[in-house]
């Protein structure tokens, strides 16, 4: 375990640690372009030069391993001069693109210029003109003029996605990033090259010109795209409503989590946020009147729903009511669902498993075939001893008649196909649909209750490994929609059960006390990295 001293601060680190890693632990910023912890070391940008005692030349911090007794400084005049010199070199052919560049505001050239550069321009030559705004894939646009040739993207496609679409062509001052012949940057992880690009060379077509990054507010969340539960940051524009066609969520960015997704996220998850601000969002309760769905207020809607549930229960007993929850819901939502329907109303026909006719599969990296973020959580909470099997009912195509179906966030038409879905729904006298967006299934319901999306709520998801991870609301629920647990609470209150929850955190406290698998968990323990459920087996894909 060598001990290194950086800028007079000492630290003992494991063997093989590089100076840049050690400095990170000491909160000393060493500028870098080519270095990325998830990629191999290129050492070519030369920004991370540091001075090491007894070494005549400056050494790149990214490639120099710490040895015992090493004394490093990042603040000597020599280092400062070298770093600012390198920055100057990087800038001589950099176009004056900040005004049109989406990266402005999160560009390492800008940041390092303020921190390590601050030199006056001495460039008095013409800049080299290169290709601008080339579409190189469905999600990525390339501007070779802005490129600093850090080769992060090249190493990404070589080492992480292993798809080898891009490379560096030409030599010297003419070097540039290009697509390899007959290649398109269209792998499912292509969006990551935008994240790792330290400058504006690779930008996101989806985010292009939608909003300036400095307007964005950030909230830590978890991707709801599959059961991997990649950690993400929901970036929303909450102060300049005229940007991005009025959308609030502007983009999702992966968030580092060593145990789950490291730095990466797949494109399906990355671009799967559009439904949040889609016009199809349900923003108020709706009730079917004739063929049309008519809006009504929450208290009426809750009364209507509770009335129907009571009626169905009176008429056909608890057995005539089926509750279909959704693995899209948070643990808190599911818990309140179970509490209200299962415990307080005594309905034991609660399930969330809907067979999906669409065949989906894993890829070999992050994406999981199960495209729900909380299947594991739903199993832990809802299937806790329950023996009801919805799939059997659906697949048996029985003509058994039921009283009421409470359907959460499940587009049956899409999953089952139109015919089976209609037949299944037809078995019920009354269908209540609770969900965030309008779809064909909601169109078939008698009562529609608007729920908030995951970007609008606090809560937790449990990924396929049983890792419970927190999500934070990045924006307010749209219109009158409410987080699912609040919807249920509202129904419960109308039905005479006042749970008194003020926040998702309170729900979770009770969840942790009630559901055995969650025992001992709390938001504090989960933290930002998540926490695994004890001794659980991963769900087979």
């Amino acid at each position: 375990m060598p001990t290194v001293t950086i800028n007079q601060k000492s630290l003992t680190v494991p063997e093989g640690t590089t100076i840049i890693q050690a400095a990170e632990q000491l909160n000393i910023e060493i500028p870098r372009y080519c270095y990325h912890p998830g990629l191999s070391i290129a050492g070519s940008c030369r920004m991370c030069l540091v001075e090491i005692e007894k070494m005549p030349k400056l050494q790149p911090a990214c490639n120099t391993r710490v040895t015992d007794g090493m004394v490093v400084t990042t603040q000597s005049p020599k280092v400062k001069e070298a770093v600012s010199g390198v920055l100057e070199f990087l800038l001589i052919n950099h176009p004056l693109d900040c005004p049109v560049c989406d990266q402005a505001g999160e560009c390492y050239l800008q940041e390092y210029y303020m921190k390590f550069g601050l030199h006056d321009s001495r460039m008095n030559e013409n800049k080299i003109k290169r290709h601008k705004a080339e579409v190189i894939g469905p999600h990525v646009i390339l501007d070779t003029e802005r490129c600093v040739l850090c080769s992060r993207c090249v190493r990404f496609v070589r080492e992480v996605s292993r798809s080898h679409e891009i490379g560096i062509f030409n030599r010297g001052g003419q070097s540039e990033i290009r697509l390899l012949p007959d290649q398109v940057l269209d792998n499912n992880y292509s969006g990551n090259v935008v994240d790792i690009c330290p400058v504006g060379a690779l930008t996101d077509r989806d985010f292009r010109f939608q909003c300036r990054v400095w307007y964005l507010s950030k909230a830590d969340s978890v991707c709801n795209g599959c059961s991997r539960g990649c950690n993400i940051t929901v970036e929303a524009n909450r102060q300049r409503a005229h940007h991005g066609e009025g959308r609030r969520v502007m983009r999702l960015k992966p968030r580092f989590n060593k145990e789950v997704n490291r730095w990466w996220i797949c494109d399906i998850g990355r671009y799967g946020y559009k439904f949040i601000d889609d016009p199809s969002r349900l923003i108020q309760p709706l009730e079917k009147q004739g063929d049309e769905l008519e809006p009504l207020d929450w208290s009426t809607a809750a009364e209507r729903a509770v009335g129907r549930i009571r009626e169905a229960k009176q008429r056909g007993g608890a057995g005539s009511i089926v509750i279909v929850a959704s693995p899209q819901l948070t643990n808190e939502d599911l818990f309140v669902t179970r509490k209200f329907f299962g415990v307080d109303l005594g309905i034991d026909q609660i399930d969330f498993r809907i067979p999906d006719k669409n065949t989906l599969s894993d890829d070999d990296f992050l994406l999981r075939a199960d495209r729900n973020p909380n299947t594991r959580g739903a199993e832990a909470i809802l299937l806790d001893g329950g023996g009801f099997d919805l799939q059997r009912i659906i697949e048996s195509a029985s003509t058994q008649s039921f009283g009421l179906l409470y359907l959460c966030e499940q587009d049956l038409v899409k999953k089952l196909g139109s015919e089976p879905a209609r037949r299944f729904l037809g078995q019920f006298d009354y269908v209540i649909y609770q969900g965030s967006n309008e779809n064909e299934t909601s169109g078939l319901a008698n009562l529609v209750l608007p729920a908030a999306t995951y970007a609008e709520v606090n809560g937790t998801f449990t990924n396929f490994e049983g890792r419970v991870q927190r999500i934070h609301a990045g924006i307010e629920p749209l219109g009158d929609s409410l987080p699912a647990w609040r919807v249920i609470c509202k129904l419960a209150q109308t039905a005479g059960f006042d749970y008194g929850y003020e926040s998702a955190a309170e729900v979770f406290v009770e969840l942790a006390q009630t559901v055995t698998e969650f025992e001992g968990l709390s938001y504090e323990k989960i933290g930002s990295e998540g926490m695994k459920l004890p001794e659980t087996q991963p769900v087979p894909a």
Partner: protein
Amino acid sequence: MTSETETTSTEPSQPKELTPRAMLLNVGPSHPAMHGVIRIVTQLEGETVEKCEIEIGYLHRGFEKSCEQGGYNQAVPYTDRLNYVSPLINNFGYVMAVEKLLGIQVTERCEYIRVIMGEISRVTDHLTCVAASAMELGAMTVFLYMIKAREFLWELVEDVTGARLTISYGRVGGVSGDLPDGFKEKALGVFKEVRKVLVEVDKLLTRNRIFVDRTKGVGTISRADAIGYGFTGPVARSVGIDYDVRRDQPYGVYNRLKFEVPLGTRGDNLDRYYVRMQEMEQSLRIAEQALATLPGGAVNVDASGNVIEARDMVDRAKMGQTRGVKQTLVQLSPNLEGLQDPRYKQVVASDKRAVLPAKSNTYGNIEGLMNHFMLIMEGYGIQPPKGEAYACVEGANGELGFYVVSDGTGRPYRVRVRPPCFALMAGVHRMLEGFMMADIVPTFGSINMIAGELDR
């Protein structure tokens, strides 16, 4: 406007004993002398004010809170509207506090410009105040003569800042532009005109018994009270409190300039009039000295003599045709005229972390452009180190202090202003009670309350 506290009884049958009752007169906020921004509730015994209560808060913009909503420079327009009669001084006071926080030293020429413009502002402020006091005594002509002089000064201000009132001239690390060509000559000419008006006003008022009767011994306050209430500026000096921030906590280059601090003795309206009249003369004197010793003319830039339009420079640089751009002078939009290369460096501190780069750099090279962006984008901008700073200047009405707290981000964590008028308003009832109803307005006028400063 009418208000009587006691409701008259509706039962006529009971013969009531006649009791003298005080008249309650509600002066303002919709009273012409109260500008709609302040209210004085007076209790009158005949015409004599027995008691009065000052109510502020009719002009509320949330200045201090507003300052926390944007970058450090974005608070400058808010400071314009504190004492809107001498906005330049407010600008400078605020940016000085931020500069203190940042630990940057502005250029000497900039200091001189600040002194000159500050003193011009002070003259406009005093002109307004004396003029308004005179008008409140019915001498409308005096008012217009002085407003005419103020107009000349505002023309100077407009020439320099691009606006008359909402000048937004101060910048952290400097000013938004150098003095225009020919400013000195024009200013000296204007000062001559102003002096002429001051002489006229002096003739019309100073020895006129009606004026003296109306002001002498009126609106007095004791020295102890003035100190106790935290009075500063001309009001404090009229009582004989010998305190002037310019002399006692010198900032800028005031310690290099000669001026006197006029003092009164009795603290009445007449003394305030005297103090203001003499301060105007002193201010003109300071401005003249500063103009005479203003350092630095145009600097020799390493330019080939080419002058190109800003748009051409932008286009060329954008297309990578940067060869030779560095040696070229850029012709700027008139609004930015004062930032042309030869002048730029003289009016702003050489600190890239606080001062926007010269326009030719923004237009012509990537370093400047990035610097420019980093100073404007939200979340970046001027980021003083964590800490706090208080800087004060001698505002037209007294010590104008800004206390700025930084949490290290691009926005002030807290901006607290210590406006002179706020303290004055605390003690003004002492200057009204015991005098006559007719004295309320002139006394109030002689204090020169500016409601923009009372905002909190």
